[in-house]
């Protein structure tokens, strides 16, 4: 069960009023915090995107009244996605392709690993889980740094491919190779998929699967018609949990390629945040990502807050 599924199951079990003023009193600080530092900042982004730019200092001037909002900055970004001056289009398309590809590869890798760990590993389970959890507390940057070292021109990967000097391999892995960026994304995020899948597969009732085989289903049929349908919500949740953070990723591409040839939408945001006068543009790109992410985000919350998903 993933974190949110568990939370969703926390339902009242008593009709008795339990210290009715106590609940609000305890919850209010957290609610105020979330309103002030989570919801309000998103409104500030809107006010800046639809605000003005100071003509002299090139700083963003937020406009708070929605009636005075000026959509020119948002239109500027939208008009540059497709067409003759579509400078943002390729990066957006690339983001979609990279994220889909990396998500698919993650699933192909994570499902067998999670399945083996949850159902077949026996007494090695604890140790295996500990190793699978390791990427959670090893810093993402450290793991990328490890690959930067390995993929140098004279690094271990090239030496491995040259088979001890038999071939002369001089691939420049770190200069805008889409393969490296996609594999880097998989390397970085696959652990976030394995754990929810593990939790889901661990809860599958063994007896149902045995019944499927006993009733004559083949190996594939029982997998396809029993195992997969039973853990479909888990798979959806795991894929979303992995792919949503990838949408805002810019550091993987920066670390492993540092080339505009593999720039994703995160790189566009990062570049414009750091250049003066483009604050509104960065905000517009943020809103764009938010618009794309909002449907899967609420779908994830809904899938995980439906109590019957888990059981």
């Amino acid at each position, binding site marked *: 069960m993933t974190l949110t599924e568990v939370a969703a199951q926390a339902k009242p079990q008593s009709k008795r009023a339990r210290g009715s003023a106590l609940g609000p009193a305890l919850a209010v600080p*957290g609610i105020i915090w*979330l309103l002030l530092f*989570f919801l309000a900042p998103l409104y500030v982004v809107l006010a800046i995107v639809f605000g003005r730019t100071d003509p002299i200092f090139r700083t963003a001037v937020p406009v708070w009244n929605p009636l005075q909002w000026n959509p020119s900055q948002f239109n500027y970004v939208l008009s540059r996605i497709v067409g003759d001056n579509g400078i943002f289009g390729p990066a957006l398309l690339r983001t979609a392709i990279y994220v889909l590809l990396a998500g698919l590869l993650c699933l192909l890798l994570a499902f067998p690993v999670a399945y083996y760990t949850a159902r077949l590993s026996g007494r090695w389970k604890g140790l295996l889980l500990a190793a699978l959890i390791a990427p959670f507390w090893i810093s993402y940057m*450290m793991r990328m*740094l490890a690959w930067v070292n390995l993929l140098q021109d004279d690094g271990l990967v090239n030496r491995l491919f040259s088979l001890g000097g038999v071939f002369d391999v001089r691939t420049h892995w770190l200069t805008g190779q889409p393969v490296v960026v996609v594999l880097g994304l998989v390397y970085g995020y696959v652990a976030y998929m394995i754990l929810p899948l593990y939790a889901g597969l661990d809860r599958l009732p063994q007896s149902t699967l045995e019944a499927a*085989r006993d009733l004559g289903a083949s190996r594939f049929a029982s997998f396809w018609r029993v195992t997969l349908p039973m853990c479909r919500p888990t798979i959806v949740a795991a894929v979303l949990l992995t792919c949503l953070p990838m949408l805002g990723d810019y550091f993987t591409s920066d670390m492993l390629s540092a080339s505009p040839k593999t720039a994703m939408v995160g790189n566009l*945001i990062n570049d414009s945040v750091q250049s003066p006068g483009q604050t509104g543009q960065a905000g517009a790109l943020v809103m764009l990502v938010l618009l794309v992410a909002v449907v899967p985000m609420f779908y994830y919350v809904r899938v995980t807050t439906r109590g019957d998903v888990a059981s």
Partner: protein
Amino acid sequence: MRGPVAWWNDPWRPPRFLVAVTFGYLAWSLIPVLIAVLFSFNDGRSRTVWQGFSTRWYFGDPVKSVWHDAALHTALLQTLKLGVITTLITVPLGVMFAIGIDRWRGRLPAGANLLMLVSFVLPEVLLAVALLFVVTSLPLPIKLGTSAQVLGLVTFQIAYPAVLVRARLATIGTQYEEAAQDLGASPIAALRRVTLPMLLPAIFASTVLVFADVIDDFVLVRYLSGNSSTEPVSVKIYNTARAAPTPALNALATLLLFAALLAITVGYLVYRRMTRGDNAAAGGIAAFAGEA
């Protein structure tokens, strides 16, 4: 010698393919990091050619080692500082939020719960840019640097303790607290002397998880750091990884790795002690990681 058909139909044959994928994945996921750790002990400047064992990049080198290079050890201290401060704020806030939401019915708490769950899956860069705009374009007393970083990190992490504590509340049920109140305890006394002790394992687990997650954070802390003196380790790695660094960078990353490993190991051992003989919480490592 069996034929391939008999082999295929044998329900008890060892799952060789799954074993290969699993251990292949583990090797792929852990060996690069181990190599990076190994090269932090390299005697030369190279991060690709082994030149003998030394600890010069930790404290031997008088200029560029982690111990002597101010830029590197301030980063490490900043990371640990952020970890401690954020954890101290996030955990009480999240625990109170979870208990409060759990015993407050209505639209408002349901909406707050939704908000908390959304903050859990929102791409981090969106929150980071939004908070950067808030801090830089509003006349607030908060400046870029440690205070802004803590603010952002608490917002991003609050879902961890909230979700873990709500899960634990669901397994505890209400009967213990009701019994306490039937025996004459006030609601606050029942909460403090019955529920809170039972929640301790979940609170403790979320403390360790928040700390481990904060010291790995990159996106928020980078945007909200004012200048290089408030840049933590992850940002330092990002800034220098592609610009001909020395193995001192590997050493810095390794020190952070050991800090996280220490926190997780100690945390797990204490957690196991706390939940000994408690079936509801004894989910092993998986429960500890919040995947009960």
